[in-house]
């Protein structure tokens, strides 16, 4: 579990983050969203002990990072753009990191295979593409079989299959009881994997909650043979109806209810779609609202 409690980091007179509080629960993927300079990376750096907080606490399984014994066995982190020495091979990089973390080098070969780099294991990482470096960074994060994963923009440079692979990996980690905290500006990608969303702006938390809750209830777009009759029957059932571009936008009914009501009044339905608010819409709404 990750707990961030009233975290503040001040550079001079500027608050990079201020009174940031949130929790990333085990078994869930938590997305940290924000524009560039919003305080995402500062929050993650404080969490990982790379930067000291001015005030507040950042805890991993109840302990500050710097007090964790053998931290790689608790937390796997992907920071920046696939960190490695460009003159070292992928295999040698992982062996160096395993020696450093005291986690044993027996997993190196299996991890290279897991991230799809077995054929590039002896190649210098300076010759890797950005996507390959990101895969190597994920392998590095998994070396100690950690329970908690913290990833800062891990999808950068990944091609669509790479993104799908990363989504599956994060989902599987959370489903196995692990905690995942991921920051990204690729909202459409993030939407496919996160359970909970934290939106940060100008160093403060703007919104925080389950994605389903923040997205709100979905609306229906309905097109049928008689819009007047449909609107009347839907409103009578307690829904609110707004005509838009030759369709009706219906709030407060499920698709099944809308279909049955239309059948009851013998109105043919040509089009009935549930429109859910996307993460991007949620983000824009929150960002504009502040």
């Amino acid at each position, binding site marked *: 579990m990750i707990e961030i409690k009233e975290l503040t980091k001040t550079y001079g007179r500027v608050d990079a983050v201020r009174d940031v509080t949130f929790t990333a629960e085990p078994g869930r993927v938590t997305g940290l969203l924000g524009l560039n300079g919003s305080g995402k990376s500062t929050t993650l*750096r404080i969490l990982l*002990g*790379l*930067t000291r907080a001015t005030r507040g606490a950042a805890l991993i399984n109840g302990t500050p990072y710097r007090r964790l014994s053998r931290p790689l066995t608790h937390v796997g982190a992907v920071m920046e753009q696939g960190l490695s020495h460009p*003159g*070292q091979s992928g295999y*040698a990089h992982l062996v160096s990191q395993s*020696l450093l973390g005291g986690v044993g080098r027996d997993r190196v070969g299996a991890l290279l295979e897991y991230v799809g780099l077995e054929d590039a294991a002896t190649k210098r990482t300076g010759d890797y593409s950005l996507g390959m470096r990101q895969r190597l960074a994920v392998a590095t994060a998994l070396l100690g079989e950690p329970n908690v994963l913290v990833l800062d923009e891990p999808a950068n440079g990944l091609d669509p299959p790479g993104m799908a692979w990363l989504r599956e990996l994060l989902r599987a980690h959370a489903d196995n009881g692990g905690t995942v905290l991921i920051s990204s500006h690729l909202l459409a990608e993030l939407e496919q994997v996160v359970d909970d969303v934290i939106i940060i702006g100008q160093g403060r938390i703007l919104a925080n909650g389950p994605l389903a809750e923040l997205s709100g209830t979905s609306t229906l777009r309905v097109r049928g043979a008689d819009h007047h009759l449909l609107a009347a029957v839907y409103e009578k059932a307690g829904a609110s109806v707004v005509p838009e571009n030759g369709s009706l936008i219906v709030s407060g009914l499920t698709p099944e209810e809308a279909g049955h009501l239309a059948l009851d009044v013998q109105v043919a339905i040509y089009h009935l779609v549930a429109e859910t608010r996307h993460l991007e819409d949620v983000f824009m709404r929150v960002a504009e609202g502040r």
Partner: protein
Amino acid sequence: MIAVIRSELYRGVTIRSSWLALLGFAFLAALMGWFDKNFWSLFAGLGAFGLATIVTAQHYQHRTAILLFLSRPHRWRVLAAQCVSSALAGVVLTALSGLAVLVDSDPGHYVSTVLVSPVMGVFGTLCVTVLRRPLWVFAGLFAWVVFVELLINRGEGGLPFTSFMLAAGGSTSGLLALLGWTAAVIPPAAWAISRDLTGD
């Protein structure tokens, strides 16, 4: 601490630029030793300093310091381990490059240089930890040696590199001065390694 030393030494042998630097400095020092034992000492000391600077600076240059501190959050221990691995590399460089001096001329000079060169490795690691950029260290080293130690101080003792030369020749006061300079860099290096690692 042992884990960091093992990892640093493994890095050293698996990164081509690191072992090429070791071989290059060793070859240069050995070549100089062919002509004069004092030249060998000078180049072995500069080699130990340069090698330590290159190996340590790579962590900041390529941002792998982040991985280092994620694995080992106790940064003073990391610094201590880096000093030990630099000292070991300095011993290897000096011992290998000075075989000609050992066999042909002066075993006592060989032994004293081998014993003192690790201090130069530690000094290099501490200096680059403060500055974090190898170019600044090498430019500063050049300016310092030429202008301060040779032109202003006229190669007399008391300053780091001339103290190293004196210590390599068996001078106890030279060794003490070198240790004093090295000790003086420890507090700023300990402060510098504890600084926040900010974004790239």
